[in-house]
């Protein structure tokens, strides 16, 4: 999970084919609940072994069912299972691209490019990890539980949703040995004040070594505050419209504060995972 140099070292040719572009076979494509679909693809071992939590694939959504998506669509790795040879995505149907994905069935082919971007850091001395996830953010954060277990770290997952019945991946997190805290809008527990209380308790009782989150502006602000207050590092996965997915087109930039200066970084290349203190609320 070491950061790659960007741009690569001058004067040295890069090893080609560091990134895979290939057609994978669809194993299944089923609803997880009313809003999300899980897509499972058969993938070769050498590809799965390169996957890291937080990375993404750039999917060439098919021209199918009247949909004609053109650009590729980025999707976080939801699960990678070298044991079963499967690569999973979790997606929400939004527009032409995801509607096209929805039409895929077992046996169909899907062209994927990846794994791309930089995944989540888990430093050697980070023992207790806390992730806060909501909605499709779970897709991005779920595989972190897998990596935490593989490295013997303790993980607490705070899962937020509108209703208890759209809470996803809770069983998945429990299977990975994580402690799960669920908060919902329905019972008012998902408010920032409540979540702040939950985290403060965690910090106090067990100590927290790193925060992880994804996508939500309010959560970013909360975790930045808590991180500064307790000196806890953190990481956030961010999104931006993409074209190339490889770092060539510079369309996917977002602003970050580095050493007091505002810089534009590419989500596909310097991200999609960034230092939580450098990220800027939007």
């Amino acid at each position, binding site marked *: 999970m070491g950061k790659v140099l960007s741009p690569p070292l001058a004067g040295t040719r890069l090893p080609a*084919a560091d990134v895979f572009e290939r057609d994978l076979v669809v194993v299944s494509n089923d609803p997880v609940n009313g809003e999300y679909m899980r897509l499972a693809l058969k993938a070769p071992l050498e590809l799965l072994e390169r996957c890291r939590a937080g990375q993404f694939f750039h999917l060439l959504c098919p021209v199918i069912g009247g949909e004609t998506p053109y650009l590729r669509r980025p999707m976080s790795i939801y699960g990678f299972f070298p044991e079963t040879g499967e690569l999973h995505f979790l997606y929400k149907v939004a527009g032409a691209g995801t509607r096209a994905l929805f039409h895929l069935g077992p046996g169909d082919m899907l062209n994927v490019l990846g794994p791309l971007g930089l995944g989540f850091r888990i430093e050697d001395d980070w023992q207790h990890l806390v992730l806060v996830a909501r909605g499709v953010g779970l897709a991005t954060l779920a595989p972190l539980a897998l990596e935490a277990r593989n490295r013997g770290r303790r993980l607490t997952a705070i899962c937020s949703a509108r209703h208890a019945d759209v809470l996803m991946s809770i069983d998945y997190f429990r299977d990975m040995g994580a402690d799960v805290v669920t908060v919902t809008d329905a019972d008012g527990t998902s408010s920032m004040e409540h979540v702040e209380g939950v985290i403060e308790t965690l910090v106090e009782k067990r100590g927290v070594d790193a925060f992880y989150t994804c996508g939500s502006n309010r959560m970013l602000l909360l975790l930045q505050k808590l991180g500064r207050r307790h000196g806890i590092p953190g990481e956030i996965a961010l999104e931006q419209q993409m*074209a190339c997915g490889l770092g*060539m087109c510079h369309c996917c930039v977002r602003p970050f504060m580095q050493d007091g200066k505002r810089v534009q970084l590419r989500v596909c290349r310097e991200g999609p995972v960034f230092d939580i203190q450098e990220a800027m609320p939007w």
Partner: protein
Amino acid sequence: MVDMSVDIAGLKLKNPVMPASGTFSEELAEVFDIECLGAHVTKTITRDLRSGNPTPRVCEVDGSMLNSIGIPSKGVRYFLEKTAPFYSAYNTPLVVSISGNTADEFEALCAEVSVDGVAAIEVNVSCPNIEEDGKAFAIRPSSTYEVMSRLRKATRLPLWAKLTPNTGETPEVARAAEEGGADALVVANTLLAMAIDTRTRRPKLGNLMGGLSGPSLKPIALRMAYQCAKATRIPIIGCGGISTADDVLEFLIAGASAVQVGTATFINPTAMVSIIAELEGRLSREGVSSVREIIGTVIDDEQKSGVVFMEAAP
């Protein structure tokens, strides 16, 4: 064995397929061995640091795309210290694309990038000329001529002028570039366009408008390439919507000596590799011994110049 090499104003390319500026960078070397390309063309650089346009910078339109990246640039220093040395590991010729807001800026940058390791300079005259009314240099023959003749004095490297489709005077602009000293023409850049999200009523691009690229642009760029080949005696490099070997042939037949592939690489990062292989395969099957035999072979029955150079929709 098909001879795939072409000659662009004295610069020999091993094949006629190269990337379009702004759709290629060092990162693509992670996907395939970029030595196989006819040339390496950098993203346009400016002298100074520039941060580019607001996001979203891209959107999709019916089988093509719009972009308003702007020209984020790390400046000429970065190019000389990092970019040029990176590409020096390859034998493939390096073409640096440059841009400036004024003729002075253009001229200075042109001289600065005229260094060892750079094989040609692509002049992005599709950028706004802030000394006049902000229209791109290449919208008018006069501003095209002026900037090209300034650049001609600033370098001994081959100069490729990259034209814009946002003009009603393609043949005149092409001739002005030639007269100003261009050694080749790249035809063309993106076409100004717009898209609105009807739910939010906001433009889909942060910058309001952007450039159309991809398949929708192909018939327009092809027409321009044909007109430029007829209007000048310098080599034409076709660019716009090329994604297959058949598209390349269309441009070569129209009179282009080489082509650039842009947006197609976003859809399929190995597009250029497949195109080169397919092109060679097809020429070989058709018994063509050199790709150069194809250039300009369109059967146009000696159309009168009123038709060739027309700028009216018929």
